[in-house]
């Protein structure tokens, strides 16, 4: 079999696809360079004397955490989208379309309103609960067959309802709370701080370990329920672990930068186009592409119409909606 190389490292033995590994490495390099450029872009400072006085402060306290948060959240959304698309075997599955994002947002909003003093560390956990309940409800409503378009349509309906509830809560809240919540929900990275970067990175780590740990089982599961089970994968347990991981990643992202749309939809498709391969390659490339997307969206939103800052969520929608239309067009014979 061409293209593979077996790697031995102590007790660890694994098989890498040379071209795909190189492509991921290349993507990571591009990401790194783009990150350096993005760090320098903006109103007050360039790279001329980056660490001098006030400029260093801008870089260290504002731009670096913001950039890192963009990378981490992008990677999280990319991973979540790739997982949901594999699970539902539907390239249109996205945390935003399935209602996961709205469920997490609503749960976090409830926390903000009723326990405003609660530690921000609780947010991803609360979001996880909200997101998982939404998935459970959607699965129940769809009654079997999460692989069909119907499942996604039901998810869309549920997320409409949850958006209504979110709007209701915003009206009920007092004015300062509402303003905070509105800014947060709009999907902006402007509030990034080192503390949120650390928390988000922790979420990414947990979700990533769960997903990469089950990647090989996921490969087998891609062959269908029967074949998966006869190859020794407990399909239900696997699905539960992967849904939980995807929801945790989405909830983590929602907690720290609000509702960023379309990343989970686009990143896996870019990954399939550019790298291809099984779950391991798909997850790595989706994470990288997600990070690229959010970082570019945030930087463009920050710089393009300066001094007006456009929230990354809107820039992402401008990229994402045409992609969604294109995906529908490509699937026109299927449903």
């Amino acid at each position: 079999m061409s293209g593979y190389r077996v790697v031995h490292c102590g007790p660890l033995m694994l098989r890498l696809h040379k071209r795909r590994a190189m492509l991921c490495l290349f993507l990571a390099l591009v990401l790194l360079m783009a990150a350096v450029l993005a760090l320098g872009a903006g109103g007050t400072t360039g790279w001329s004397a980056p660490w001098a006085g006030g400029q260093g402060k801008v870089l260290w306290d504002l731009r670096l955490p913001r950039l890192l948060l963009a990378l981490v959240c992008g990677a999280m959304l990319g991973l979540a989208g790739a997982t949901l698309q594999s699970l539902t075997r539907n390239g249109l599955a996205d945390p935003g379309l399935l209602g996961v994002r709205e469920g997490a947002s609503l749960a976090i909003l409830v926390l903000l309103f009723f326990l405003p003093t609660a530690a921000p560390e609780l947010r991803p956990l609360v979001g996880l609960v909200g997101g998982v309940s939404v998935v459970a409800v959607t699965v129940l409503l769809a009654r079997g067959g999460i692989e069909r378009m119907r499942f996604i349509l039901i998810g869309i309906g549920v997320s409409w309802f949850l958006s209504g509830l979110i709007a209701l809560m915003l009206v009920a809240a007092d004015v300062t709370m509402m303003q905070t919540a509105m800014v947060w929900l709009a999907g902006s990275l402007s509030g990034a701080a080192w503390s949120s970067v650390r928390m988000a990175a922790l979420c990414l780590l947990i979700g990533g370990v769960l997903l990469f740990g089950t990647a090989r089982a996921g490969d087998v599961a891609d062959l269908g329920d029967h074949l998966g089970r006869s190859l020794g994968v407990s399909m239900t347990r696997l699905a539960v672990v992967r849904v939980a991981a995807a929801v945790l990643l989405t909830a983590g992202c929602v907690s720290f930068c609000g509702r960023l749309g379309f990343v989970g939809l686009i990143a896996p498709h870019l990954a399939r186009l550019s790298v291809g391969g099984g779950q391991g390659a798909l997850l790595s490339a989706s994470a990288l592409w997600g990070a690229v997307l959010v970082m570019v969206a945030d930087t463009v939103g920050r710089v393009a119409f300066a001094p007006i800052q456009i929230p990354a969520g809107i820039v992402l929608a401008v990229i994402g909606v045409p992609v969604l239309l294109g995906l529908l067009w490509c699937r026109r014979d299927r449903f």
Partner: protein
Amino acid sequence: MRGLLAVAALLLLLGAAVAFHQATGPRPIGWSGLWQAVWAFDPMNFDHQTVMALRLPRLLAAFLAGAALGMAGVLLQSLLRNPLGEPHILGLNAGASLAVVVCLAFPLGVFSAPLLRPVVAATGGGLAFLLVLLLSSAGRLGLTMTKVTFCGIAVSALASTLTSGVLLLDEETLATVRLWLLGDAAAGTWTTVRAAAPLLLLALLAGWALAARLNVLALGDALATSLGVSLLKTRLLGLVVVAVLCGGAVSMVGPVGFIGLMVPAMARRLSSLDHRALLPRAAVLGGIMLIVADAVARWLLAPRELATGVMTALVGAPVFVLIVARRMKE
């Protein structure tokens, strides 16, 4: 007999809805106050001012928009043979909003005039819907329920993204349309009602006139053609009427969703499936529903007001989910 009963019940409901709407206003004004304000208007009386400048246009806008959206729902569902046919889901509302916002943000001469707002909205909605139809009729299986719905959602997303893009760069327009863009009957003023009402009445009549053709269309394309109904002409006419109905509604109260989804389902229970009876009843029912939705939105968190569109989404989204879960077995 049953028909008469249904009509009487509808009229009674309408009266009750108006009373409820009247009672939920933040300022208590009795029936006599209302009566006097209309028939013996005193410009110095604050109650009269409230009634004439705020309540009446709001009520009228809600009723007319609801009627238009209700009938548009029936028309869409019959024309597309799709229980998810609804102006908001299929992109008409978002397209109409985008057109209005663009005409407000950029100086486009007569098109920015308030009198032409319903026409602009209708054009925008119609174009968006045309795009949805073009996209979803591609492919081997043709215009399936799932595909139309998905394309509608995608085109809606496209239009709303463009709308928020325009508004981000133009804060002045954002301030004027903010309330309206959420879909709120409170945005209805005499100016917009006056501009939209004649057009809407015309479109409602035109929709009713299509009833006989729709009855034949319900028998299937092949039979309809052999009975002498031109499919293309009926569909085109229907789509123009739907676009005008939605444009008129959006120009007054903004993009309010789901009325067109709930009303047809209810109206079909209230009346025979004969479109000649179904269409006017759906219109009245839609009017009632939007008035009630507006009243509840005003009353639920009083003294704060919820946008009417949020209210209809809270009820309508579960209905959407139910219809998908039940009717789509693929």
